[in-house]
């Protein structure tokens, strides 16, 4: 139980932020106006005293980098979530021979750094594959020799590991009465799962999904270490080409904050659209 709560806690940490951010009755208090002026001054200072002359030259690359980051985020959360459903179900209700491997998988993914997993896959497996001529000559090789499939795979199983733990709690948290009622109505087991259990579980997991997605976004820059050119890699490239230390990093921070803001807004909008019937 402790682990499931911890998993939820991980999500809750993020959602709490949205609570504090939500507008109090009067937003423009005197001290906020002063703070906004100070912030504007800092921004102006950054804009005029720091070096931004490299921006125009790298703009196309930056655009591509942001696009790749978003693409990675979308693809890996989507597939990761679909993997998480069976992982959570197996742990919550599966027989031991399904529950045990699912549990082991989640523990291993959550217990080791993503950077290590990524390097294990890219350098470990990647150095193993070419030793087999069958793989090298197969049609898969053009993909296996690139870096992005490893990045997608590592990020997907990572998200599945964390979200699987959340889904386990969600499946367990569905009120027993709902399932009993369905059973009493003579619903077949698969129908109960499809019509009652799964929708209720997803509804319970939804509030943490936004937080998990933000955490996933924050994990994406690690793929730059295996030569995938995301926005982080573009910023590193700028740093290394121009020897400018802080400006590309500041730009990076702003880009990630904007994306995080958009994710939080999107999930808030989505949650409002899903009527919460679970009282």
């Amino acid at each position: 139980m402790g682990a499931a709560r911890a998993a939820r806690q991980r999500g809750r940490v993020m959602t709490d932020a949205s609570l504090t951010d939500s507008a109090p009755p009067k937003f423009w208090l005197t001290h906020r106006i002063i703070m906004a002026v100070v912030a504007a001054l800092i921004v102006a200072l950054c804009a005029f005293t720091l070096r931004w002359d490299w921006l125009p030259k790298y703009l196309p690359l930056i655009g591509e980098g942001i696009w790749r980051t978003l693409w990675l985020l979308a693809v890996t959360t989507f597939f990761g979530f679909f993997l998480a459903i069976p992982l959570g179900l197996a742990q919550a209700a599966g027989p031991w021979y399904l529950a045990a491997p699912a549990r082991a998988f989640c523990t291993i993914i959550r217990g080791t750094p993503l950077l290590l997993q990524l390097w294990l896959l890219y350098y470990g497996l990647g150095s193993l594959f070419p030793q087999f001529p069958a793989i090298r000559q197969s049609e898969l090789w053009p993909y296996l020799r690139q870096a992005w499939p490893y990045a997608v795979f590592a990020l997907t199983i990572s998200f599945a590991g964390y979200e699987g733990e959340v889904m386990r709690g969600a499946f367990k948290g569905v009120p027993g009465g709902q399932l009993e009622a369905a059973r009493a109505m003579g619903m077949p087991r698969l129908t109960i799962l499809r019509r009652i259990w799964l929708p209720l579980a997803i509804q319970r997991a939804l509030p943490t999904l936004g937080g998990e997605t933000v955490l996933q976004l924050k994990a994406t820059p690690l793929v730059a270490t295996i030569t995938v050119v995301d926005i982080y890699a573009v910023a590193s490239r700028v740093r290394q080409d121009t020897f400018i230390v802080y400006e590309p990093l500041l730009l990076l921070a702003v880009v990630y904050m904007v994306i995080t803001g958009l994710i939080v807004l999107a999930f808030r909008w989505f949650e409002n659209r899903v009527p919460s019937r679970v009282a």
Partner: protein
Amino acid sequence: MKFLITTVSALVLGTAALAEPVKVGIASEPYPPFAAPDAAGNWVGWEVDMIAAVCAAAELECVVTPVAWDGMIPSLTSGQIDAIMASMSITADRMQTIDFSDKYYNTPTVVVAAKGSGITATDEGLAGKIIGVQVSTVHQDYAQTHFKSAEIKLYQTQDEANQDLVAGRIDATQADSIALDDFLKSDTGACCENVGAVADDKDILGLGVGVGLRKGDDDLKAKFNAGIAKIIADGTYDKVTAPYFASSIYGG
């Protein structure tokens, strides 16, 4: 006040501010035969020995400090290290940010590719191929300028580029001839061969490898220059080089 700050910095930062040994940065990734960690955790190689020799000749107390290659120059300018001896070539681009001592070695640049690939070290020879280079090196600059028909893939370390060449993820790599010779001699390097030196371009490939220093650290620069001149004159340079290379790599 002065006492307080020194004490506080000694407590917080672990080391006192005065009589500081010179921290010489090397890349924290293996770059044999210049610098690589051994199984006991010590850094060994030609450049590590050279640091010891130069520092001894310049009467400096030096500490070898591994730093990530891509953070090398920021580490120097932000004061985490005082000098760079990490096979960093002297180039005009870098000179805008940091200063260099006189060179202490200079070797040609070559391209290595899989055996029988038919790749040559020219733009035509590499057309449509993927060439891997270490980021933020003269080789990246050179490949981007001269190998426009090739796809260029950037690596944090040369070691990763070598590894991906073995794994077949790239078709060729360009780097310093000595570093690549060492790789070709290793077990994993059996896949590949040297396909020749690239045409020289002094503006990009620079004037050899020197000690990177903060701008304005002229005392330290003078000491390093004196140290380098001294070991070349008294034969220490050749003595250090002999176990690693058949001939001197000081270059012309």
